[in-house]
């Protein structure tokens, strides 16, 4: 199977080489920007009307297309923007800078883009959703905090594990199988405090793209999905301040030009203040001394040297900090954890057909736990640190091909759970800090190719190579768990090496301009694993590289879909089916503890298995008009099988979901009022509960059922919101009229009346009231069993209690902008 694809690829490469040697075309290339703030626009369609040849702008707003000599009408479109047209006399290759304006009067339909976009039907990419922040911000948000991760979980095929769980699950894959990129930097833990909030501050984000299947070759290293998030570049026209004050957090974003049209910046910060608000209340309770907060900081700078060179620097730093001090017992603990990322990117345009991007990325995730009592000190740390270099080329030989190629190298430093303890002067031997080092390299090529008018194909090939290197000590054990051999590896010495070819293929066949069929096959390798100790996902989960014991995760996904747009592309619909296999999955063995580092390797604590998943996804989206939103429904199965779990039998994964439905509606009543509603329904999670108990040494112990043999009750919930945006102009006008009347009464001159300074005129604000869990559904977080009385006395009583996290929760947010 693999060989056939491989050979096929070379044949294709050869064919198009011959093709573009013969081509006699001129190129039109350039970038598309938002006219108001100079942000480059991703996914804008640029096409020549007469010959219906078009492309979408890439991640940096760049496009390139080819056409024979002639006169054309160039059209540029993007949802929410006014359609841009320009006549072009093509005698030689041209470079353009297109500025399109955001449609402020979107509600008065007449002036809106003549036609919505049909990218979903036309492109070869399937299983993908692109969301812009304008759309996301209209949806009801938990505690008023706009949240990208929560929003994507409303899409078919993407699931969460319920309130209070971090991570998301795509098509039956685990939360570690999602590649989360923030300006090309890996984000290893995308959630604050157990998933209540994502680390992405909505004010700093421009665009979100999710790929659930048919992953193009430029992405790799994960099995299930890509969440590609782009930060705003910063307004290069005017200074702008956005902010918001909510009941648990406040945000502030400042952006503006450093040199107009050439350089701009954006800085954005957010901090929660539950710790401060809840303090007086907590102080009176048993939980005195408890405090928690998180903060985020995003910054980005960009500099346009010239038309051909542009530099970006972006950084993110976020931290959760949990403190607890027990005054009575002198017990103190401090638990900080968080991510830091930084990426430096250089866009260089060699010529109108060749675009390049070089990226250097630093990414770090750390979890620390420190506890002190009297002279006793106890510390746990774990984390992962990456140094990443990428070089990507985008080549547009002619209008029928879009070739991407690149290399990627990552140096990973893993710190699996390390424990240290000290009492006074005595340090306990809990092992040295163990770090694992590895090289992770990849090379890829792909071509998005219009074979015929109706048939488009995206084929790609990726090759990954992963090496664990020393220093490293391997403890080999016999069947009783006693060490019978120890192997030492020196620094940089190879411990183990894995590699693999990852063919990717996607096909689109257009039945008519409104409908298409798409199919894809992808094979992915993943050389890092997330080991989850608990039945809930927590920041304590540990990242582990492939080692001699841990083999790379290998995924295969087959997907087939039908896409159709109705009513002049106002309604997008799709049906997709998928089948996916995942090999070399890991789980902790029974009774394993992540801190077993002494005379032991962390990977000895794992058991290995496989997973497979299949399902169907239905999606209807309306993206234009007063009423917008979508309905998604997924029917799916997610299976696992591990040698040492459930006696080797197949079992359903925790987040196996037979049914998953979501309804998202937003209604823009007028300029002042808009409303949003979300309703979700999901089959309950699977979990492991005690099924029975037994008597041992005179007391009762739980006998747990088979792993994931219990199914929780379904999860469902409705959220609503309403946003009121006062009409500033009207207000200013009213005030002006009032002044004029007053002046007239007083007999003063009314010609030069100024009611507000410039910034005040620009000032706008809005009030959002959102209600989470409107009908107060008690969704299960976990269930625990209670026992009263004594078994041997015959007085035992048993019961079960369900803990739910969030009852109905109204919240209020004030947002402003000037």
């Amino acid at each position, binding site marked *: 199977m693999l060989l056939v694809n491989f050979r096929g690829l070379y044949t294709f490469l050869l064919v198009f080489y011959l093709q573009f040697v013969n081509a006699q075309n001129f190129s039109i290339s350039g970038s598309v920007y938002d006219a108001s703030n100079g942000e480059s626009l991703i996914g804008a369609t640029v096409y020549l009307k007469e010959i219906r040849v078009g492309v979408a702008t890439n991640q940096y707003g760049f496009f390139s297309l080819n056409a024979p000599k002639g006169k054309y009408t160039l059209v540029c479109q993007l949802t929410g923007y006014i359609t841009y047209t320009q006549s072009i006399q093509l005698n030689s290759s041209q470079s353009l800078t297109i500025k399109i304006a955001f449609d402020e009067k979107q509600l008065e339909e007449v002036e809106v883009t003549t036609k919505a976009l049909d990218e979903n039907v036309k492109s070869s990419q399937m299983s993908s959703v692109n969301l812009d922040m304008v759309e996301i911000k209209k949806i009801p948000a938990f505690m008023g905090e706009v949240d990208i991760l929560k929003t994507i979980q409303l899409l078919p095929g993407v699931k969460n594990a319920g309130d209070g769980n971090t991570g998301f699950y795509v098509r039956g894959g685990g939360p570690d199988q999602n590649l989360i990129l923030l300006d090309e930097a890996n984000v290893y833990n995308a959630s604050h405090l157990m998933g209540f909030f994502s680390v992405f501050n909505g004010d700093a984000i421009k665009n979100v793209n999710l790929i659930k299947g048919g992953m193009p070759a430029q992405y790799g290293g994960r099995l299930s999905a890509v969440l590609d998030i782009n930060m705003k570049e910063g307004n290069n026209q005017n200074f702008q301040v956005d902010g918001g004050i909510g009941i648990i957090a406040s945000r502030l974003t400042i952006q503006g030009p450093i040199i107009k049209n050439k350089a701009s910046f954006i800085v954005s910060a957010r901090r929660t203040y539950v710790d401060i608000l809840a303090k007086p209340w907590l102080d009176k309770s048993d939980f005195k001394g408890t405090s928690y907060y998180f903060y985020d900081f995003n910054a980005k700078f960009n500099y346009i040297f010239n038309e051909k060179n542009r530099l970006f620097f972006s950084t993110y730093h976020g931290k959760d900090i*949990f403190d607890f001090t027990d005054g009575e017992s002198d017990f103190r603990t401090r638990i900080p954890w968080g991510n830091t990322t930084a990426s430096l990117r250089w866009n260089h345009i060699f010529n109108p057909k060749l675009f390049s991007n070089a990226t250097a990325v630093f990414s770090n995730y750390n979890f620390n736990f420190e506890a002190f009592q009297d002279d006793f000190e106890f510390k746990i740390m774990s984390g992962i640190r990456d140094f990443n270099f990428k070089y990507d080329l985008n080549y547009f030989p002619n209008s029928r091909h879009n070739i991407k190629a690149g290399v990627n190298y990552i140096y990973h430093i893993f710190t699996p759970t390390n424990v240290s303890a000290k009492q006074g002067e005595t340090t306990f031997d809990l092992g040295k800090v163990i770090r694992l080092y590895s090289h992770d390299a990849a090379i890829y090529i792909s071509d998005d190719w219009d074979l015929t008018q109706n048939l488009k194909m995206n084929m790609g090939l990726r090759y990954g190579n992963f090496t664990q290197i020393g220093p490293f000590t391997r403890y080999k054990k016999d069947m009783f768990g006693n060490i019978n051999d120890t192997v030492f590896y020196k620094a940089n010495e190879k411990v183990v090496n894995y590699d693999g070819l990852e063919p990717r293929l996607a096909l689109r066949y257009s039945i008519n301009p409104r409908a298409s069929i798409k199919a894809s096959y992808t094979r992915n390798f993943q050389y890092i694993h997330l080991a989850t100790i608990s039945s809930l996902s927590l920041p304590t989960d540990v990242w582990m590289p492939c080692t001699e014991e841990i083999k790379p995760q290998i995924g295969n996904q087959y997907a087939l879909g039908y896409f159709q747009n109705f009513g002049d592309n106002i309604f997008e619909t799709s049906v997709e089916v998928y089948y996916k296999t995942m090999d070399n999955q890991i789980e902790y063995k029974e009774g394993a503890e992540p801190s077993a580092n002494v005379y032991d390797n962390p990977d000895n604590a794992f058991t290995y298995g496989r997973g497979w998943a299949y399902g169907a996804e239905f999606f209807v989206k309306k993206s234009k008009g007063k009423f917008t939103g979508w309905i998604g429904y997924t029917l799916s199965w997610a299976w696992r099988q591990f040698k040492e779990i459930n006696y080797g039998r197949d079992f359903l994964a925790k987040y196996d979901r037979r049914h998953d439905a979501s309804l998202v509606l937003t209604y823009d009543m007028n300029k002042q009022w808009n409303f949003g509603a979300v309703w979700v329904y999901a089959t309950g999670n699977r979990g492991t509960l005690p099924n029975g108990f037994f008597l041992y040494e005179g007391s009762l112990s739980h006998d747990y059922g088979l792993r994931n043999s219990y199914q929780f009750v379904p999860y469902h919930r409705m959220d609503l919101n309403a946003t009121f945006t006062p009409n500033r102009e009207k207000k200013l006008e009213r005030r002006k009229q009032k002044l004029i009347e007053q002046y007239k009464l007083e007999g003063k001159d009314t010609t030069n009346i100024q009611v507000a300074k410039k910034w005040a005129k620009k000032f706008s604000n809005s009030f959002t009231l959102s209600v989470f869990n409107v009908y107060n559904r008690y969704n299960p977080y976990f269930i625990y069993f209670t026992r009263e009385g004594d078994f041997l006395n*015959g007085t035992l009583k048993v019961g079960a209690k369900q803990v739910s996290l969030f009852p109905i929760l109204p919240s209020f947010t004030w947002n402003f902008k000037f």
Partner: protein
Amino acid sequence: MKYFNYIVLIFVCVLFSCRKDVNVKLPEYQVKLVVEGSIETGSPAVVLLSYSIPYFGEFDFTTPEKSFVKEAFVTVSDGVMVDTLKALDPSVGYIFIGSKINGVEGRMYTLKVKVNNEEVSVQSTILPKIALDSLYFKWEQDSLGFIWQHFKEPSGLGNNYRWFSKRLNTKYTDAFFAAPLFSVFDDKFVDGKNFDFSYDRGPQPNDVQKWRDDPNRSYYRVGDTVAVKFCHIGKAEYDFWYTYYQNKASNSNPFSAPTNIKSMFVNNEKVFGAFVAYSPYFDTIVIKPKP
């Protein structure tokens, strides 16, 4: 790690959560034969046999004796002799005791249990005795405190231990040696080291409720005479007890992995338990008033 989980749990529960009683429909339960067997140097084997009980099933909790195994054919052999264990009270069953074989250091014992025509067997060896250096008492309050032991752990990895205590004085006389929570440890962190350790006082297996109701349940009192039994045990036996205590500690706490105990009846879904050969070292301490 556990601290973190509990603290977050507390925090979350305080701020938002709500609790309610629910009816849970658990998957069908497979009742298991529970084997609690032991032998130690100088004593015959003792095996307790019972059935596990489904959580929300038909079982009537007012008649706990219905979980006891009344009839069973239980033998222990040392490779030469076979000792058939007899029920202490044939009308009740549950506790079966040997008479012919007393444990001897260095010997391996095979336990065979046959109930309802199904037979299972498991082996355990009495390892060489390892002694504690000394015992001493540390007062926590005027009349209460803990027993500490000074221990020089022998060099060489792979030793596992279990600790028990029994009060011998007239006021509180314990019937059994009792083991507290996590009364096992191995030498992974302490191999060849000189160190001191202490444990809480454990419950008496015949009356756990009494211990639970005692506000000073973990302490020893001034005036107690306490015997300490410190046993050298094997790896599989240690794993069983360690995971047993993990299971007890997690107690359906969602932040820890549900721990299935590492039964010494490997890969057997119908039988659960252990047969532990103990190699005990005994010492006694008389707890004096705080000077």
